[in-house]
């Protein structure tokens, strides 16, 4: 009898890229739901625009590169990039900026380097930084959370705002939008106010800003799910959060009135989302166990440094991109001790 041949191991393999990406998307659901609750329909519209753009761009570039289109789209990685970028964007950002960012992420950051698995930089974060640097006004025009907002736009109104730039007749952009809490903190500190003075404002909640901190909690929940499912390595989020808390804690201890306390950093901006969903992007992160601790810690430390002394209020995107560059070097110097290798103090 004759039989077909192929290489070992034999059996139904337990892991799939599609499964990994699907679980990431699933883990985003609680956080995204919270964002919709606090910031309205714009979040959904952004995700939809980014997803459609990402799929179309990926399909087009795969065709140009003579790669299998359907099979590659099925890996869902383009959707993950789109979702992560859309989540980071202000909810009423003009549609073409979302499209521009997504195209840049898929075409330039991902496919010009060879597609999935070959990109040295996190596509979503590179695109976010491109938009932030090129369109700072639009990119910093956020919405206040639900409990502080004076107006709540309906789905139709949000759609109008995003696609036409028109708000309902009675409203102005200034009435609808507000700065992000990190931006607010930064501006107030520049006015030489003390932290305790700044925190008098109704903007602030237990740790970070009201609404915002809860979005962080829900993303954190999804992140813990991913770590439990071993889709992500716990080391990166743990080290990033640890690094941020430790470094900010040291500085805060010396100057608690001009350096926000560690809990504020943890629950503000993109810290939680970044720790569980952005820094853990496997392609661009460090891959050795020790290296992941170093990589995460350095992101955490860099986030604090940029937030405190840098030119931008939030820093997760910059910190992640900087450490993307460092990842190969970190990997090189953190190779694990091989089984049976004579220990020369490198154990």
């Amino acid at each position: 009898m004759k039989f077909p041949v192929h290489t070992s191991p034999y059996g139904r393999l337990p892991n799939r890229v599609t499964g990994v990406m699907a679980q990431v998307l699933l883990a985003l659901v609680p956080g995204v739901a919270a964002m919709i609750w606090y910031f309205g329909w714009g979040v959904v519209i952004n995700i939809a625009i980014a997803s459609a753009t990402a799929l179309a761009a990926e399909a087009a570039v795969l065709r140009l590169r003579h790669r299998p289109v359907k099979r590659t789209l099925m890996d869902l990685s383009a959707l993950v990039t789109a979702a992560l970028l859309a989540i980071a964007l202000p909810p009423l950002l003009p549609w073409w900026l979302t499209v521009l960012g997504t195209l840049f992420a898929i075409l330039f950051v991902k496919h010009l380097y060879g597609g999935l698995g070959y990109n040295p930089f996190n596509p979503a974060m590179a695109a976010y930084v491109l938009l932030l640097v090129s369109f700072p006004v639009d990119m910093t025009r956020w919405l206040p959370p639900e409990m502080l907002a004076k107006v709540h736009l309906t789905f139709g109104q949000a759609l109008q705002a995003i696609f036409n730039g028109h708000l309902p007749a009675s409203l102005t952009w200034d009435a609808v939008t507000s700065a992000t809490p990190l931006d607010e903190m930064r501006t107030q500190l520049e006015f030489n106010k003390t932290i305790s003075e700044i925190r008098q404002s109704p903007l602030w909640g237990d740790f970070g800003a009201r609404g915002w901190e809860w979005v962080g909690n829900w993303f954190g929940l999804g992140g813990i799910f991913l770590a439990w499912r071993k889709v992500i390595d716990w080391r990166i989020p743990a080290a990033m959060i640890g690094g941020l808390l430790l470094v900010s804690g040291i500085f805060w201890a010396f100057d608690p009135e001009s350096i926000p306390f560690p809990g504020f950093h943890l629950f503000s901006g993109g810290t939680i989302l970044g720790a569980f969903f952005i820094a853990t992007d496997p392609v661009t992160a460090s891959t050795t166990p020790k290296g992941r601790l170093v990589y995460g810690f350095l992101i955490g430390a860099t986030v604090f440094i940029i937030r405190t002394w840098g030119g931008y209020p939030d820093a997760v995107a910059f910190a992640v991109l900087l450490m993307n560059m460092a990842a190969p070097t970190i990997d090189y110097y953190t190779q694990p001790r091989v089984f049976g290798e004579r220990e020369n103090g490198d154990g």
Partner: protein
Amino acid sequence: MITRNPGSWDFHGGIHRPDMKAMSAGRYLGKMPLPQRLVIPLQQHIGSLAEPLVSPGDRVFKGQTLARVTEYIGAPIHAPTSGTIVEISDQPVAHPSGLSAPCIVLEADGEDRWWDELPEPLPWFEEMDAALLRERIRWAGIVGLGGAAFPTSVKVNPGPDRKIQTLVINGAECEPYITCDDYLMRTEADRIVEGIRVLMHVVAADECLIGIEDNKPEAIAAMQKAVADSDLTTTRVVTVPTRYPMGGEKQLIKVLTGKEVPSHGIPAEIGVICLNVATTAAVTDAVMAGRPLLSRLVTVTGEGVNNPGNLEVPYGVMMADVIAFTGGYSDKAYKLILGGPMMGFTLQDDQVPVTKATNCLLVASREEAPDPDHALPCIRCGKCVEACPAQLLPQQLYWYARSKDLDKCQEYHLFDCIECGCCSWVCPSHIPLVQYYRFAKTETWAKEKERQAAEEAKRRHEARVERLERLERERKARLRKKKEALEKKTAGDAADPKKAAIDAAVKRAAERKAQKQSSEEPK
């Protein structure tokens, strides 16, 4: 020295997958009847090819040595039954690429008559020198029956300056589906324990640790009873957790003793020798009965056979016949895998002979061994790093193997890879990682061979040039000497007093003659 708390250590990584052993465990299908024709490969072991001692037409008897090895690493081949040698030629063998290899074809006479020159049993082995017992093990053609087929006589010869502390007997059988070692331990624990007694004497070990995975409670109980009934005081059965690749030599040694076999090293360097249970039983036969290795237990299993189980098969029997004997293929038969699903390989054809290394014939259904998906790019998720029991960085190795950067592969410890397949198993991109490492290893060996050949050529060329130069020098030296001798001769001519005297005499004579002539001239 005795290991304290054996089995209390752990190895990094590994995987859990359903062991699928229930299908064949404890089921015995009997002894495979001898077919008319046996095809006996000359290479059934790691090491040099055995050279035939017989020629076509020769009549041979069961147990007679058919082929011997002269190099240190190798194992002789014996006749599994009596009969006539038909031919010695290349025949298809169990090889991943379906290659042929030299085989002795034996036509059985059905009498199954033993050779009358078999060596005597050695029940008094304890009074014997270890070297003689090693010689017996070598004669018997015993190789590692766990599947690697490394010559046992070499393994049990650690060298005079290496003290062996622990003899590890490997009954882990961690590959899914395979149950032949399990069956042997359940039913022939005494034979294994007898082998341990012999081996303890041969390697002069302080203790023996028998490692068995906890999914084989019957085997554990049987082995414990056999050890308790014996006079072995420092032998212990250690239950180890079921986790692939627990039965890997390095992994089992680590778990049992806490010691790590050095990278690029062998267990003897840390005072350990590790042998499989079936190998140990074969040692018993060689020493206590004076019989060579002629057959082995083979597991036939998978959804592709009607009647899975274990059976005793002489080597040289066609795999197709073995499966037919067990009850044949079922409708679901899709792939024929030699060995287990993690480290085995598929065979194109079942018309190849069983050898000493054949531990399992897994006939998998389409569900059990689906065709592989297209591999996606590596997303560097690091699942392979978590799974690698050698603590390597498989994703880096893959990267460098793919780009044929063999130096970098070595830097990332390519040769510490035990090819267990854990990385390929957990890879979400379904990349056949181990294939890349095998490729890189083969390339490295080929390069090394090339380099050695080049070096040899260079050495020869240099030797030739030097030889020619030397010959030239010698020729010149000879010429010079000759010339010098000649010159010396002419110079010496002048100096020689005798010659000078003669010359002077001749001269005088000539003068006198001239004077005489002139005086005699008429005036």
